Structures are given as structure tokens and as C-alpha cells.
């Protein structure tokens, strides 16, 4: 590979990484400052370094329960999304049936509905069902955008697996469930990982629905963070510390799926 070209590429990459990291750096720095420090003057690093903001969050139940609530409904949502999407994606990738193309596009349309549209109906539906302020309510509501995406991603991965594998397994006398779990699932492991990552991501960062459907018991961290406005103005420092902590679970998840992404996937018949 010619050298100068390589350098231009690295320069571009480094420039982007700096652009990507600066706002996060700024938030991290703020989380170690005091409020006076943040608001009084411009400084690149904390003048009075403090752990107090993290201490506030990790010792106050109204703060840390937000993280637990978020993780619970995200996990439920991920599990339901993947479990229902797997057979459907298999059906779309292997069989043609009455209305399959329409059904597939219809599923995608649910990903296109603005969440704002659903606020009021969801509120009424879950109040009627007595599901308000439960983890399951948020998990179910988030299915609207995660299930279609999971089906779409898994279908892409499954279409990359040759059909002959299914046929051979059936000839060898495997039943469908046995074949699916024992042979097929390991083949699309990467797809499950990637789909789970996307479900995690979109459910973890969503605020509007999660905030509308919860009040106390299942209140997500993103909603807890909106209440830091007090008489003395915004509590920027604690907010920044909470923001830093919201990145942690996601960073762990991406660390686990990085291999699947680095190994590559093309999605669909190539």
C-alpha cells in the first residue's frame, strides 16, 4: 500500500475520532467539576476535582434505581424482540406465502411511526390494562420499533445461510424446532448478536415513551435526569455524571458484539 494514501486515511480517522470524543470529553470533565466551577469560567479541566457528583448518584436510590429500571425493561424488550423475530425472520427468508411482501413492508412501517403519535393512545391503553408504571409496559411499547428492526436484520443474516443446510437437516430426520435450535441458530449467532445490540440501543436511549408510561416504580434513568432542574437552576455537574454513567452499559454491550461487526455481514442475498 502506498504510504501517503495511508496517512491521509489515518488523519481523517483521527480527525473524526477527535470530533466524536470532544463532546464526551466535555461531559466527563463536567462530571468532575462543581457547579460553580462549570458556570463561573471556561476551563479545559476541573479546577477543583471532585467525586461528589458520582457519590450523589450512587448513594441516592432515586438516582440509581433509574439505571436498574432502564436495564430491566431494556432486557425484557430485547428478549421478547429476539424471540418473536427469529421464527418470523426464518419464514420471510425461506418461504413465500400469501402476502409476505406486504407483511414485511407493513412491519417496517411500524418503525416509521413517530413516537409522538403514540403517546396519548399508549397512555390510555396501558391505563386501561393496569400496566402503567411497570417495566413490562415500557418493554411492550418499545416493541413497536424494535421488532420490525430485529426481523429485518435477522432476515438479512438468515438469507446468507444456504438453503441446502435446511434441506439436508430435514432429510436427516431433524424436526423443525430441533433443527432450528441445534443447527440453524449457531449459524446465525452473529445476526442475533447484532440484532440484540440494535434492540438494546434503541430501547436504552428512548425517552418519550418511557417517560410517559412510568411515574415512580419503573422510571428510567433518562427521565430521572430531566428532574435535575431545581430552584438554583440546573444541576449540571450531577447531570453530567449521570450522563457518563449512561454510556457504561452500552459500552459493555458494544464490547461484546464488536467481533460480530468486525467479522462482517452483508445483509441479504449477495
Amino acid at each position: 500500500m502506498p504510504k501517503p494514501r495511508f496517512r491521509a486515511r489515518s488523519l481523517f480517522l483521527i480527525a473524526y475520532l477527535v470530533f466524536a470524543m470532544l463532546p464526551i470529553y466535555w461531559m466527563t470533565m463536567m462530571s468532575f467539576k462543581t457547579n460553580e466551577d462549570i458556570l463561573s469560567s471556561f476551563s479545559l479541566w476541573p479546577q477543583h476535582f471532585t467525586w461528589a457528583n458520582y457519590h450523589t448518584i450512587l448513594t441516592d436510590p432515586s438516582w440509581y434505581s433509574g439505571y436498574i429500571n432502564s436495564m430491566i425493561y431494556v432486557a425484557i424488550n430485547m428478549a421478547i424482540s429476539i424471540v418473536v423475530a427469529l421464527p418470523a425472520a426464518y419464514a420471510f427468508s425461506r418461504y413465500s406465502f400469501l402476502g409476505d411482501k406486504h407483511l414485511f413492508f407493513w412491519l417496517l412501517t411500524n418503525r416509521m411511526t413517530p413516537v409522538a403519535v403514540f403517546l396519548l393512545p399508549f397512555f390510555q391503553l396501558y391505563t386501561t390494562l393496569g400496566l402503567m408504571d411497570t417495566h413490562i409496559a415500557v418493554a411492550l411499547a418499545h416493541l413497536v420499533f424494535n421488532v420490525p428492526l430485529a426481523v429485518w436484520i435477522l432476515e438479512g443474516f438468515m438469507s446468507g445461510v444456504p438453503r441446502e443446510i435446511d434441506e439436508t437437516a430435514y432429510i436427516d430426520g431433524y424436526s423443525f424446532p430441533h433443527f432450528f435450535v441445534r443447527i440453524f441458530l449457531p449459524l446465525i449467532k452473529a445476526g442475533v448478536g447484532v440484532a440484540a445490540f440494535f434492540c438494546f440501543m434503541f430501547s436504552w436511549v428512548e425517552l418519550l415513551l418511557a417517560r410517559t408510561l412510568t411515574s415512580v416504580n419503573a422510571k428510567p434513568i433518562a427521565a430521572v435526569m430531566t428532574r435535575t432542574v431545581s430552584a438554583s437552576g440546573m444541576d449540571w455537574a450531577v447531570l453530567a455524571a449521570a450522563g457518563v454513567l449512561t454510556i457504561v452499559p452500552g459500552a459493555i454491550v458494544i464490547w461484546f458484539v464488536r467481533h460480530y461487526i468486525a467479522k462482517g455481514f452483508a445483509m441479504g442475498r449477495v
Partner: protein
Amino acid sequence: MKTVNQKAWWLVLPVVICVAFSAVLPLMTVVNYSVQDIISPTRHVFVGTEWFAAVLRDEELHGALWRQLGFSFAVLAVEIPLGIALALAMPASGWKASAVLVVVALSLLIPWNVVGTIWQIYGRADIGLLGYALTQLGFNYNYTGKPLDAWLTVLVMDVWHWTPLVALLAYAGLRSIPDAYYQAARIDGASKLAVFRYIQLPKMRGVLMIAVLLRFMDSFMIYTEPFVLTGGGPGNSTTFLSQYLTQKAVGQFDVGPAAAFSLIYFLIILLLCFVLYNWMLRVGSGETEAPHA
């Protein structure tokens, strides 16, 4: 050819039930509201298409729609090429690849209101790095006062936030290309550009389709980030469709018009996605057949 098998419906059924529960039921409620005037919880009057007509004539809505279209177009025009370029520049393997992947993905995993909050401080001229740097460089930058600055800040924030999604998908697409393809290209003496155009781009078609559609849908529905950052202002320069809808539905509690607006909004996204989806399917299939022709 796929086997025709009507029993496949059984496999799809769980998904249909789930989505029907969490999408069709709420959507029906919206349809129900859109044709009624709710005077009090017990008094509903059927008004037919009156709300739809009112919403379609709403000047403010037209403004929000054009701003939305301009914004979504700008988002796609910046993020898709930038994401592809980033994917091409990312290291292919080793610890560097892992580290870069994690760093690039970080911005995706921050809750949306936190994204807005970070940028709110980050852009301030007195205490934020971006605002301070721009002011020191001699720009009269002020995202809370000047409409253009506000719009650009929301755009840059979106680029920062979402380009990683395009990059991750494009990267995965690139990594799926077997080395043999590149070897063949080298033997043919193909230029970098030709390799990109005839090997990399067609192989990224599937993932790019997801990237383009997701970015289009999500930018069209953007709400939380501009809400936190600018609150739709100054004036209404960053009031996009979701913002306007929520103002109507929650702020003024005009349930009927808001529901009618919701449905029109949904139909606009549906139509645009349908066009985009079919266009990309066609462009792609032409691509794979071109070499044989």
C-alpha cells in the same frame, strides 16, 4: 426460488400479534380521535374530515414540513458519505479495530435527552468548548439567538450522534467481502475507485439500505435532541414535525387536530420510505446484473 408454504404464517404470527398490540391498537385510537371533537370526556361529536382539512391548511405545519424535509435531506447528504468514508478508514482487524469500534459507537448509546444536554453546554460561548472555540476564532456564534446557528448546531449534533450508525453498518458490509475479490481486482489492475464502485459499494448495498432508511425515518421523527437543545427556537427555526405535533397534542391539548396531524405525518413518512425503499431495491438489483450484461 423460495418454497411456497402457507404454514409459514404460523411462524410470523407472534410478530404480528406483538406489533398489532403495540402499534395497530394505538393507531386505531388515533384514527378514532381524528374524526371526533372531544368537548368533554363524555361528549364526543363526529366531525368527519374537518380536522384533516384544518391541518392541511395550517401554515405553520407547512413551515415545519419544509424545515423537516430540508433537515432530513441534509442529514442523509452528510451522514451517508461520511459514514462510508469512516468505514473505509477504520482499521480492519486487531486491537485497534476493537478500540475504534467502541469509541465510534459511544455516541449512539447516550440517551437522547443527554445528547441534547451535552450539546447545550458544549455550544455555549462562555463555558462550552465548541462555543468558546468558535468565539475565539472570531465567529459571532450563538445557537440560542441566531436561527442559522441553531439549525447548524442541531445538524452537527445529529451528524455527531448518528454517523456512527452508518459507519458501523458500512464497516460490517466491507468486512464481509472475501479477500479473493480484492486479489482478483489487483490482478485486473483495477483502480481504488473501481474497487469501490464495483466491489465495495455493491457489497454494502444491503447494509446501506438499512442505514439510509433508518437515518431517514429517525431524522424525520427527531424530537428529543432539538427539544432539549433549542426548544424549537429561536423563533421556530428548529421546530420540526414531531416538535410541532407534541406542542399541539400535549401543550394545547387539541386531541382531534393532533390526531389528524399524526395520521398525515405518518402517511408522509410512509410514502417517502416506500419510494426510497423501492428505489434502493431497484438501483441495487440493477447493480448485480450490470456486470453480466
